[in-house]
C-alpha cells in the first residue's frame, strides 16, 4: 500500500478532539515513515555509541558496561540529620550522593542572617562552616563515593569545604570525584539564586575551572543545567537550546581566560529535566549530544574527544507532580525515569510522590529509588544501547529539535550572546511566557494533567510527611556560635582580608577561599567579603 493511500484512508476517519502537538509546540504527525528522515545518513547522524557525533550515547558499552548512577538529591535539617539519611540511602543501594542545601546556604547566607529566618534546614541541609561539612560526611569515605553538590553562587566555598574534609580524611585532591553545579547563567535566567552580577560570577567560575583543571582533575566543575529552566516553565526546546547556549558561553569564557579548550571542556557536565512528553524528552537528550559534539568540533576545534561529550544527570520533573492524587506521581516519575534511561543518562534522580507537600519521607524516597532499580533490573531496557535509535519518529523529532535549537542560537547571537541577552531579559521573558501559556493551555483543556483538569476527584489526601522541627534553626545557630567562639578570630580576619585582596587583584580566588575555610570562616563572611568587591545583582523587572 502506498503512503498516499493510507493518508486517504486516514483522513476519512475521525481523530480524537485534542491538540496533537508536544510541549514544545511541535506538531506531531499521525505516523512517521522513512520519508520523514529523507537525508538520513547513519554514520553522519547517528554512528555507533561512543563515536562522534554521539547521538546514540557517550560510551561504547552504555548500560551493558555499567548502569547509570542512582543519585537521589537529598538534604534537610542539620548536617547530622542529613548524614543519617545518606547512610540510609547508601545502605539501600544508592551509588552516589547528591547534596541539597537549604536556601540560606544556596544564597551564601549564614543561619543567623535575618533573611534566613524560617528557612534554616527546611529545603536542604544548612551549612555554615567547615564544621558542618565535617559532620555531613562523617563516616562516609570520600575516596569511594562521588558527590554532587547543587550549589551556585557560593560553589567555590562549598567545594573548598569538601576538599578540606578530604584532606582531613587523608584523601588527596586528585582522587576526589563529584560535581558542583556552579552554573550561574541559568540562575539569572530561571532559578534566581544569585549574589553578584553576571561578570564577577563568570570570573569566579573561570577561577574554579582553572584551579580544578590543575588540582582536582576528576571534578566536574560545572553542571550546565536545563533542569531549572524547565521547572521555571520553559518548553523542552527552550530547555535544550538555552542550556547548550549557556554551555558554549562557559567554553567561550574559559578560552578567553587563557585555558586551552581541551583542559576544561572534558570536565563540563550537564543536568536535564525529564518531563511528561515521553518521546520529546528522549529526542531532547539525543539532540543535545549531537549538537554539542558538532559545535565543539567544528566551532571550538576541540581535539580531545572527551570535550565532545554531553555527559548528563537527569532529574524527573518536579513541576509535573500533582498535590492531587499524589500516588499518581509514582507512575509519572517512572515514565520520566524511563525516558531518561532511553535517552542515555549517566545518572538519575527520581522524585518522590510527596514532594508537592514537603521534603520526602524515607518511605517515599525508597519507592523513588526502587523505581529506578525496577527500570534497571526488571524491564530489560538497559540490555541494548539506544533502543529507539532508528525509530522514524524519534529520529525526526531529534532532527527537528536540533534545527530549532540552532535557530534559537541565532536569535541569542543577534542579542549579543548569552550574558547581554540575560541583561535584556530575553530568557526570562521567554520562560515566563511559556509558563503562562502552559497554564492557560491546561485551563482551556488543550493539555491534560491527570487529577488537575481531567479525572479530578474530591479527596482528602492523607500522606505521611517529613516535618522539619523548628529546633533545627535554634540548634544550627547554636553550633554556628560555638564555632565562632572556638576558632581563631584574628586568623579568620586575616584570611578574609587576603580573600578581598585576591578579588581586587584578579588573583585566582580558590586558594584564598581554601585558607578561609580551613580557619572556619563562615559561608556568609566569605560571601559578604566578595560582595564588597563585586557588588550585588538586582532583579530586572520582567513578566
Amino acid at each position, binding site marked *: 500500500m502506498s503512503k498516499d493511500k493510507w493518508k486517504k484512508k486516514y483522513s476519512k476517519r475521525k481523530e480524537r478532539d485534542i491538540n496533537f502537538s508536544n510541549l514544545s509546540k511541535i506538531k506531531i504527525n499521525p505516523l512517521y515513515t522513512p520519508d520523514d528522515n529523507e537525508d538520513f545518513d547513519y554514520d553522519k547522524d547517528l554512528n555507533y555509541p561512543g563515536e562522534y557525533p554521539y547521538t546514540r550515547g557517550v560510551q561504547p558499552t552504555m548500560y551493558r558496561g555499567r548502569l547509570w548512577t542512582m543519585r537521589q538529591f537529598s538534604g534537610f535539617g542539620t548536617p547530622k540529620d542529613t548524614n543519617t539519611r545518606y547512610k540510609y540511602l547508601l545502605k539501600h543501594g544508592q551509588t552516589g550522593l547528591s547534596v541539597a542545601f537549604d536556601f540560606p546556604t544556596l544564597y551564601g547566607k549564614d543561619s543567623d542572617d535575618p533573611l534566613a529566618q524560617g528557612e534554616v534546614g527546611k529545603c536542604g541541609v544548612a551549612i555554615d562552616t567547615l564544621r558542618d561539612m565535617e559532620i555531613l560526611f562523617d563516616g562516609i569515605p570520600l575516596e569511594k563515593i562521588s558527590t554532587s553538590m547543587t550549589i551556585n553562587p557560593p560553589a567555590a566555598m562549598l567545594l573548598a569545604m569538601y576538599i578540606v574534609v578530604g584532606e582531613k580524611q587523608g584523601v588527596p585532591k586528585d582522587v576526589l570525584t563529584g560535581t558542583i553545579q556552579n552554573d550561574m547563567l541559568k540562575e539569572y535566567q530561571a532559578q534566581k539564586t544569585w549574589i553578584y*552580577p553576571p561578570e564577577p560570577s563568570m570570573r569566579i567560575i573561570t577561577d574554579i575551572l582553572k584551579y580544578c583543571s590543575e588540582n582536582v582533575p576528576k571534578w566536574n566543575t560545572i553542571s550546565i543545567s536545563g533542569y531549572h529552566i524547565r521547572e521555571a516553565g520553559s518548553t523542552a526546546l527552550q530547555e535544550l537550546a538555552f542550556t547548550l547556549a549557556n554551555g558554549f558561553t562557559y567554553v567561550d569564557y574559559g578560552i578567553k581566560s587563557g585555558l586551552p579548550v581541551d583542559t576544561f571542556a572534558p570536565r563540563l557536565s550537564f543536568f536535564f529535566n525529564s518531563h511528561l512528553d515521553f518521546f520529546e524528552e528522549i529526542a531532547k537528550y539525543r539532540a543535545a549530544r549531537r549538537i554539542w559534539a558538532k559545535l565543539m568540533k567544528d566551532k571550538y576545534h576541540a581535539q580531545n574527544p572527551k570535550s565532545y561529550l554531553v555527559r548528563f544527570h537527569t532529574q524527573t520533573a518536579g513541576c509535573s507532580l500533582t498535590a492531587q492524587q499524589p500516588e499518581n506521581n509514582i507512575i509519572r516519575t517512572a515514565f520520566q525515569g524511563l525516558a531518561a534511561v532511553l535517552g542515555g543518562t549517566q545518572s538519575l534522580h527520581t522524585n518522590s510522590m510527596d514532594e508537592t507537600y514537603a521534603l520526602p519521607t524515607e518511605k517515599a524516597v525508597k519507592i523513588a529509588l526502587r523505581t529506578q532499580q525496577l527500570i534497571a533490573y526488571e524491564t530489560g531496557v538497559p540490555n541494548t544501547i539506544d533502543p529507539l535509535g532508528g525509530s522514524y519518529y524519534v529520529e525526526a523529532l531529534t532532527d527537528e529539535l536540533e534545527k530549532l535549537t540552532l535557530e534559537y542560537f541565532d536569535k541569542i547571537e543577534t542579542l549579543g550572546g548569552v550574558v547581554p541577552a540575560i541583561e*535584556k*531579559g530575553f530568557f526570562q521573558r521567554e520562560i515566563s511566557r511559556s509558563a503562562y501559556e502552559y497554564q492557560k493551555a491546561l485551563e482551556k483543556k488543550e493539555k491534560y494533567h491527570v487529577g488537575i483538569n481531567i479525572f479530578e476527584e474530591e479527596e482528602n489526601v492523607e500522606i505521611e510527611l517529613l516535618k522539619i522541627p523548628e529546633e533545627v534553626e535554634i540548634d544550627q545557630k547554636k553550633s554556628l556560635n560555638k564555632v565562632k567562639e572556638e576558632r581563631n578570630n584574628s586568623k579568620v580576619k586575616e584570611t578574609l582580608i587576603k580573600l578581598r585582596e585576591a578579588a581586587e587583584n584578579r588573583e585566582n580566588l580558590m586558594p584564598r577561599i581554601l585558607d578561609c575555610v580551613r580557619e572556619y570562616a563562615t559561608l556568609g563572611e566569605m560571601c559578604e567579603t566578595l560582595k564588597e568587591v563585586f*557588588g550585588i545583582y*538586582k*532583579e*530586572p*523587572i520582567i*513578566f
Partner: protein
Amino acid sequence: MELLQRFLKGDKPAIARVITKIENGTDPKLLEEIFPHTGNAYFIGITGPPGAGKSSLVNAIVPKLLENNKKVGIIAVDPTSPFSGGALLGDRIRMNDLALNENVFIRSMATRGSLGGLASKTKDIALVLDAAGFDYVLIETVGVGQIELDIAQVCDTTVVVLVPESGDAIQAMKAGILEVADILVVNKGDRSGADRLILEMKFAFELRDEKINWQIPILKTVAIENQGIEKLASTVKFHKEYLERSGEIEIERKNKLVLRVNELIEEKIKTHLHNYIIDQKQLKKMIDKAYERKITPHYITDEIVKKMFLKKEV
C-alpha cells in the same frame, strides 16, 4: 482621628488611603481640602524609553535627595493593559533599597483610562504627596509619544533617561526630548555606544536656535553601580536653584496651572460629551447618512457641539 488630620501629620496609611480615594474619584471634596497645603514640594520627572533603567536611577538618586532630613515621595507609573484593564506594576522591584526608609513613600500607579498619556490622576496624586509634606516628589514613567510632554507639564525638573541600546527609540523621541528635557541622562553609560550617543545628543541640542538660558546638561550614569549619581543629584539641585534665582519657577508654575486647567477643561468636555450629549442612536443615524454621502462629518460635529452648549450644567 479624621483621615485628613492623620494625612496632614504624615501618617503613611492615611496618605495611601487619600491617594486611593483621589485615584478612584470617590471623594471629590478631598482634593479641595488638601490643595491649600500644596505648593511646597519640588516636582521631578524621570522619563525615558522602556529598559532605560529609570527605576534603578530613582533607587540611586533618592538617598541623595534625602540628605538634610528631606522627605521624598515617588509615583511610579506603568501602563494599564488595554485588553483587560489590569496592570502589572513592578517598579518596586528595583527600588528595594528604599522600601523601609521612613522618609520615603512609594506608590505604583497604572495609567487606567488615559489614552497614551500620563494618567491625569497622576498629577493630582503628585499634589497629594506635596500636601503630605514631601520635599521632593518624583514621578517615574515610560516616555513614549505623549507622556514625556505630559510629565514635563507637572514637573519642575524633567530628567530624560536614555541608554545606548535605545537608538531607534531616541530617533523617534528626539523632538520630544528636546522639548521637555531639563537634564539628559545616558544611563548604562559603561556600555558601548554611550559616548557616541552623548555626542549625538550634544549636537542635537546645539542645533536649537532659540535663545534659552538653561543649557541642558548631558550626564552619564551607571545607576546600578551608583556611578554619576552624585553629579545628577547636584545638577537637579542646581536646576532648582536656577529656577528659583531667575524667578522662572513662578512663571513656569503659573504656565503649568494654565495647562492643567486647559487639560481639565478638555477632559471634562470629553466626558460630558460622551456621557450626556452624544445620543448614540441619533449618532448612528447620522453616520448612516454620512456614509451615503448625504451629510458631512463636519455637519455632524457642528450639530453635536451646538447641542452641548445648549446644555447648562457641566
